[in-house]
């Protein structure tokens, strides 16, 4: 978890997905509303408990008290009071709720999205207008609101990065929008939040917020993906890669090409360009490293049972070659 930026503070705020450490204006306005309404609700809860405790102290039947009290049937005035009080509270809550909805859920108003995220069972495809396609992490610049278009390739999923604000479902045949506006550069953890089948729990996402300059250089690097190592091992890995059916599902550029073509590659599975740049493999299942990449290639089903990446039963030799071929870093 190196490089993570925590809002220092409470224990609860120290968890990387904690709602108690909001890191964007959207998340903060939700957090403020949450704290306010929770305070009111807890006060009501406290009042009720105190009343019950008082009653239990004062009105328990004592031994020998067999007579029933004289019946009391009700009190209209009280009824009106305790109808009006909750009504007043929910009215205030409604009034407070409306601006927060507009703040966190602004309509895109025809603006073209900055990034398109397409959910798949059980990984994320991330596309940029200039043709960069990556997976499972969303790089974006800080300092301005970034508009995400959210779609799905199969079932319903939900994009959720708790410290950056609301979650948003991704539905077949529909595009939903979400604004992301991290305050500071950093890595923000998230996850798919709508049950989507076997590996729903391992469909994690990361938002990597960068300064505009860092973001620009990242994007440029992605437009010119690294070429494979010239070592014999990597060459052999390249042959295994072409021989196996990897390219039926994965996009991987292994000769310098026009950047714009990147977008047209198949996207049944994560793009493998600059794979070494990613933080995790299998949408958060493994930390990314050459060793874990080898582990994944050796038996993806053992790493992420149920995932849509088949097990090719490679020998250790083949795995080593493939790893050498695939492990490319742009920096």
């Amino acid at each position, binding site marked *: 978890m190196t490089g993570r930026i925590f809002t220092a503070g409470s224990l609860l705020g120290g*968890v990387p997905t904690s709602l108690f450490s909001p890191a964007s204006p959207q998340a903060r306005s939700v957090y403020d509303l949450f704290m306010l309404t929770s305070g009111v609700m807890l006060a009501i809860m406290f009042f009720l408990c105190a009343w*019950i405790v008082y009653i239990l102290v004062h009105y328990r039947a004592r031994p020998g008290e067999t007579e029933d009290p004289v019946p009391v049937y009700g009190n209209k005035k009280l009824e009106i009071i305790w109808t009006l009080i909750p009504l007043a509270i929910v009215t205030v809550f409604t009034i407070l709720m409306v601006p927060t909805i507009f703040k966190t859920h602004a309509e895109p108003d025809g603006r073209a999205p900055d990034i398109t995220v397409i959910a798949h069972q059980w990984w994320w495809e991330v596309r940029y207008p200039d043709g960069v396609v990556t997976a499972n992490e969303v790089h974006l610049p800080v300092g301005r609101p970034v508009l995400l278009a959210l779609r799905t390739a199969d079932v319903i999923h939900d994009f959720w990065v708790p410290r950056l604000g*609301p979650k948003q479902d991704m539905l077949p045949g529909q595009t939903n929008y979400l604004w992301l506006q991290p305050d500071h550069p950093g890595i923000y953890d998230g996850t798919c939040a709508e049950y989507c089948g076997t590996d729903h729990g391992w469909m994690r996402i990361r938002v990597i917020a960068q300064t505009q300059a860092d973001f620009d250089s990242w994007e440029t690097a992605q437009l010119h993906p690294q070429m494979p190592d010239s070592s014999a091992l990597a060459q052999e890995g390249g042959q295994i890669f072409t021989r196996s059916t990897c390219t039926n599902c994965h996009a991987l550029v292994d000769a310098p090409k026009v950047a714009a073509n990147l977008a047209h590659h198949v996207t049944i599975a994560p793009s493998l360009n600059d794979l070494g740049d990613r933080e995790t493999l299998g949408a958060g299942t493994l930390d990314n490293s050459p060793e874990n990449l080898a582990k994944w290639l050796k038996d993806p089903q053992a790493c992420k049972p149920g995932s849509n990446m088949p097990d090719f039963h490679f020998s250790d030799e083949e795995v080593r070659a493939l790893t050498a071929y695939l492990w490319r870093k742009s920096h």
Partner: protein
Amino acid sequence: MTDLTLDGPVGSDATHEHEDGGEGLLSWVSTVDHKKVGLMYIFTALFFLVVGGVEALLMRIQLAVPNNHFLSPQMYDQLFTMHGTTMIFLVAMVLVNGFGNYLIPLMIGACDVAFPRLNAFGYWITLFGGIMLNYSFLAGGAPSAGWFAYAPLSLPAYNTGTGMDYWTLGLLMTGIGTVTAALNLIVTILTLRARGMRITQVPLFVWMMLITSLLVIFALPALNAGLVMLFVDRRMHGMFFGSHGSPVLWQHFFWIFGHPEVYILVLPAFGMISEIIPVMSRKPIFGYNFVAASTVAIGFLSFGVWAHHMFAVGLWNSALITFGASSMLIAVPTGVKLFNWVATMHGGRIRMNTAMLFCIGFLVQFTFGGVTGMTFAIVPLDWATTDTYFVVAHFHYTIIGGIVFAMMAGAYYWFPKMSGRMLSERLGRWNFWLMVIGFNGTFFVQHILGLLGMPRRVASYPNLPMWGTLNMISTVGAFVFGFSVLVFVGNVLYSVFYGEVAGDNPWDAWTLEWLATSPPAAHNFERVPYVRSRRPLWDAKNPELADWRHPEGG
């Protein structure tokens, strides 16, 4: 309508052919007696409670530590789907039907429900639906799309195998059973009340069951229609909910059933609380009319809030605001009820027995569930907390902390009537405190987990700070809770044979069921008095202070 009833046993004649069918298994299988049908519903619910409970414990073992491999994700998905479906449709609904069937005719001074044969049919088809649903485990895999079965995940493209088909057909059958039971209870309440008993004088449990049954009549058809469409989609390539249809449409169908369903389950619990608190506090219910009217308000509102289950699907802001506000409004009539219950206790002479303890547990825990529920009505907070463990914690507070605790209170309160013997108070204390500790231990920490970003319905989770510890606490709590259920079952088994003999009216209660013998005779009553108020037995015992003498008491 009351002039249809006689002074004495009233109700349909159909029972009398069967009532002396002897003991033995056959007498149960062939019975159309509302009490036996009621008890069969209750036993069935207890059986499925154990099934659903074991499913829950298996899940909690899997979640006890991060990155666990105790269960495969496929198995986990089947278990949580079956756990939810079982607990809602085969435990809670069935318990409601059981108590309703058993108690309503007794409470209104009738000798059976209006349509006894239909009643038996309702039970058997519900049981058959339950068996069919669970048979899926043997038939190649249980359903695994979650208890609300969102399309397209529930369609064959993403859900091969027959589990989902058993799910749709099984639920359709229990759905038919539930609708027949509801119709039956409505007619019973409207037509078979004792002489003199006005509809505004029925015990509040009866009143709430009436509203619940009306909700069933309007809500269940949406589910049943949805289930038929889902089945057509799955087996006949219909195009209702798939990518050529609308996945959101399924959500509308499901939740326009699903939200009223919450109230279908909770109103009977409210009804029980409204019976038990007054008797144990020795005071009439405070504000009968307000408690009754707020039930009607909840009934109406419950049909106007379903979209709060769908705030994240991308509705327009206008819809978000409307449904957010309408959802919040439900807090008003619910709050009115809470205040009236506590006001009933205020100034009473409270008997702190197990039934009352469970009522108090209900009051506190249900309120907490209601308080956290506001989070899902306030739209931006819903976006933060929905589909996390926070919502899991919230609805378990309302369903277990609320409904189950009320049903436990009901069990301790009416067991003497059903069996003729009292449940052991000593075991009852153990039962209560273990349940409080187990329940809160399991679910309180889940609020925190949700706020720390843990999504629901995950078969395993990464080792983030605090997640492991909180989940371990939750798992330990679940086992304590499971143990408390065993204590209850033990108490029932022990007390049926060795419990103190109850007599007809052990609590000195005021409604008509306590006039019958314990357990009641096959035809319920020898004679039913002319009813002049809401508390006929109080009137008989305290003629000077009779309720009907008081302008607000009648």
